[in-house]
């Protein structure tokens, strides 16, 4: 490549690598032109990382797509400049921009699971990127691709080249994306929420990797993120955006230490922090004689594969010998990384997947219930899911959606049901007038409130919150969490709170269980787990959480050499059950072999 300035240029000494001036990006919708990003200006030097932070709708992703020349058809740059090494990117004709994309400036995206083409091998997708820009032979491109995979520390790169994307985990796929983006040593790398879809321990590894590669190659990075923890740990400077405008721009330490704008202060205050939970200590609900829900040696297995006669050959041990109970009025947390079985437990509790072992709700065992019995159980257990838009029927008014559980259970007259729905709307902070509207007319936070109202309509004893606040902006997230807490104090409802976000969990739960590969490896009160984590996996999880404080620099985490083992076993064999040992005060810890 012609890229010469690989050394990190000291800020301000030379012309910046990228200089964005008054950039305005507008959408044209039925003849009306509306700006999505207005008057954005910033500079970026070689070797530097600039974070663009903001909540949804802030225009941060549109900005990155504008730089790449990948804007949707009806969106375009309408004013301003974006000079990369003196060339105004929006002015480049498409044919020339195409030659720059992937070579001079590259991009990685949020969703590693869907960002690679499922029908082509990793190798063909990587070599294709190289050969699109460099006149090299297939063999040379292949060698370069393997080298790039090695650089992102993918084990056995030769073998990976022949694999298809679905054979790799999310973290591995994101590494492939990074390798592909950096293979041609671009001057600028745009990373749009690169770790948002990844588990926290994997996020840590990917961020460490980006930093190491940057030190090596001198690539400038624009990091687009909503996560202030990630900002604090990775960025040199920060641009805070809101509704298409820049609110504040500052070096990362200054921004966190002394935010100048109200919005920035609010944004930082809303960020859930590890260690903050202990301050809001409330008395633990006593171990009541009758728990709301109880699991004893619960197991959920899924058969997969087929032999010559069509019989399954393997079994996914999604949940393996899990026991815990949820007390009246408490919030019980389930944490762990994707695939650990936490959502499967929720489904088993709600009777949505068949289980073995003993699962009871309000004293009634779920196994062997009649259809009527199952319906009755539904009145005691309700769920609130991650994506409220997907959880609400788009053709049903939200009022109907909230009243529907009453209708299904034949409770009250139509007028009574409407009245109850209206009451619930007010309770969750909406107005009864909004009941005739449809889900798409609400914001994400409002939709989640509607889902909470619907869950409350049957006055359940337990509400399962499966990543219920994970998709919400931090400020909205804080409001919904407050709402849940108020509701618990008023009605005494219990929550099973499932989340991957350790900081949020610390803020809301009374007790929690840490899951790994379908089994509980540690369980105890919030204080026991967060102030005195005993199991190695719990510690890893806690260590990986990014801390929204740039003053606290942590050394890179040692890279995990292997992937999480598979919970899939041949029929007939099964994983070894971990043994939980009480280390005092009901704090249970799995013995590590």
């Amino acid at each position, binding site marked *: 490549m012609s890229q010469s300035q690989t050394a990190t240029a000291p800020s301000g000494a030379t012309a910046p690598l990228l200089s964005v001036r008054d950039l305005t990006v507008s959408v044209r919708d039925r003849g009306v032109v509306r700006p999505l990003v207005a008057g954005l200006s910033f500079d970026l030097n070689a070797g530097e990382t600039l974070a663009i932070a903001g909540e949804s709708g802030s225009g941060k992703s549109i900005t990155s797509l504008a730089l790449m020349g990948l804007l949707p058809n009806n969106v375009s740059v309408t004013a301003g400049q974006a000079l990369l090494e003196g060339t105004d990117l929006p002015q480049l004709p498409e044919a020339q921009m195409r030659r720059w994309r*992937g070579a001079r400036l590259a991009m990685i995206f949020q969703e590693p699971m869907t*960002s690679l*083409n499922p*029908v082509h091998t990793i190798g063909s997708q990587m070599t*294709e990127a190289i050969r699109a820009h460099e006149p090299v032979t297939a063999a040379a491109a292949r060698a370069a691709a393997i080298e790039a995979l090695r650089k992102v520390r993918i084990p056995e790169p030769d073998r990976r080249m022949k694999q*298809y994307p679905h054979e790799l985990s999310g973290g591995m796929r994101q590494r492939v994306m990074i390798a592909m983006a950096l293979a041609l040593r671009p001057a600028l790398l745009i990373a749009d929420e690169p770790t948002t879809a990844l588990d926290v321990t994997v996020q840590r590894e990917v961020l460490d990797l980006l930093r190491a590669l940057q030190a090596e190659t001198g690539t400038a990075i624009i990091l687009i993120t909503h996560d202030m923890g990630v900002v604090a740990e990775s960025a040199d400077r920060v641009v805070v955006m809101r509704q298409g405008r820049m609110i504040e721009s500052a070096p990362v330490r200054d921004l966190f230490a002394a935010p100048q704008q109200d919005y920035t202060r609010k944004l930082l205050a809303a960020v859930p922090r590890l260690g903050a939970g202990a301050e809001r200590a409330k008395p633990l609900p006593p171990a009541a004689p009758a728990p709301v829900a109880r699991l004893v040696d619960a197991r959920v297995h899924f058969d997969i594969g087929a032999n*010559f006669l069509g019989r399954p050959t393997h079994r996914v041990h999604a949940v393996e010998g899990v026991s815990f109970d949820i007390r009246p009025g408490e919030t019980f947390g389930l944490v762990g990384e994707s695939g650990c079985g936490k959502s499967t437990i929720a489904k088993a509790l709600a009777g949505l997947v068949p289980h073995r072992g003993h699962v009871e709700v309000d004293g009634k065992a779920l196994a062997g219930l009649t259809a009527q019995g199952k319906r009755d159980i539904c009145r005691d257990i309700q769920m609130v899911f991650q994506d409220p838009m997907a959880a609400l029927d788009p053709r049903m008014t939200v009022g109907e959606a909230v009243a529907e559980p009453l209708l299904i259970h034949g409770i009250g007259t139509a007028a009574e049901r409407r009245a109850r729905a209206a009451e619930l709307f007010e309770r969750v902070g909406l107005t009864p007038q909004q009941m005739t509207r449809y889900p798409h007319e609400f914001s994400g936070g409002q939709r989640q409130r509607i889902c909470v109202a619907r869950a409350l309509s049957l006055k359940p004893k337990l509400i399962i919150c499966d990543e219920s606040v994970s998709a919400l902006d931090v400020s909205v997230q804080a409001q919904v969490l407050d709402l849940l807490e108020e509701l618990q104090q008023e009605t005494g409802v219990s929550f099973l709170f499932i989340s991957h976000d350790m900081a949020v969990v610390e803020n809301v739960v009374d007790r929690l269980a840490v899951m790994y590969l379908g089994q509980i490896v540690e369980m105890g009160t919030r204080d026991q787990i967060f102030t005195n984590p005993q199991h190695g996996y719990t510690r890893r999880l806690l260590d990986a959480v990014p801390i929204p404080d740039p003053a606290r620099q942590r050394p890179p985490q040692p890279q995990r050499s292997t992937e999480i083992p598979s919970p899939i076993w041949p029929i007939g064999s099964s994983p070894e059950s971990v043994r939980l040992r009480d280390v005092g005060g009901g704090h249970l810890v799995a013995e590590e072999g």
Partner: protein
Amino acid sequence: MAGYLFRRLVQSALILLGVSFITFVLLYVLPADPVRQIAGRSATAQTVENIRQQLGLDQPMLVQYWRYLTGLVQGDMGRSYLQKTEVSTLIAARLPASLLLMAGGIACELLIGLTLGVVAAVFRGRPLDQGLMVVSFVAVSAPQFVVGLLLLYVFAVQLGWFPIGGYGTAAHLVLPAVTLGIMGSGWYSRMMRSSMVEVLRQDYIRTARAKGLTRARILIRHALPNAILPIIAMIGIDIGIFMGGIVVVESVFGWPGIGQLAWQAIQRVDIPVIMGVTMVSAAAIVLGNLLADLITPLIDPRIKLR
């Protein structure tokens, strides 16, 4: 893989068994009497009865069916009541023509349909897209005998580019194949368009653009293989629809295939021939579907047959 194939073949055999039984029952309860057709109007009651006994048509239905079935598994499809020839001979003589027509029809509908679908998807929302969708709608709605006659009139009678009817050269094949394929091409263009629009929205297409690939390469290498996956299963099902089309098209163009054979047999209640053609068609549909399912994993590495 071997297990999968074995189970699918067993399944296929069961389907064919079901088809044979249902068709047999339907033909049995039909009010038309095949014996009268054979004997003719002037035959005496005694002659009619003799023929009935000769053909075994005086037996209970299940006995007749069992006889037919045991013959069928040994490769004996019976003899035509009217042409006094083995049904298998009749079909064997005409099957190649029909298969050729069918292959031509499929090639036509895929070539036209997929091309138009891809073009419409690339220009989605613009006048070209809207125009193509109107054309595809017309193609779907037009009855095959109308399309056939229209093409005959324009390209054979007026322009004289192709022969009016018959069988033998590649030129003979063009008009019948286009007629057969045109309805399907309307379907496929619509399906391909929506499949392609969906694929073009995927993250991996954005990745391909971010890599700096050319538009053509993105379209052909990254979008097309993904967009075509749902279409392949449709082609298998399509063979069934074609069987209906073949009867019409072969009549219009005087194509000597099994469609014509079936048409003649139905008119004269020639039960063994009707059964034979039905079984061959059913076998073609079952095989077509099996083939489509076997092709899919070659394109989509996520699909494993077990």
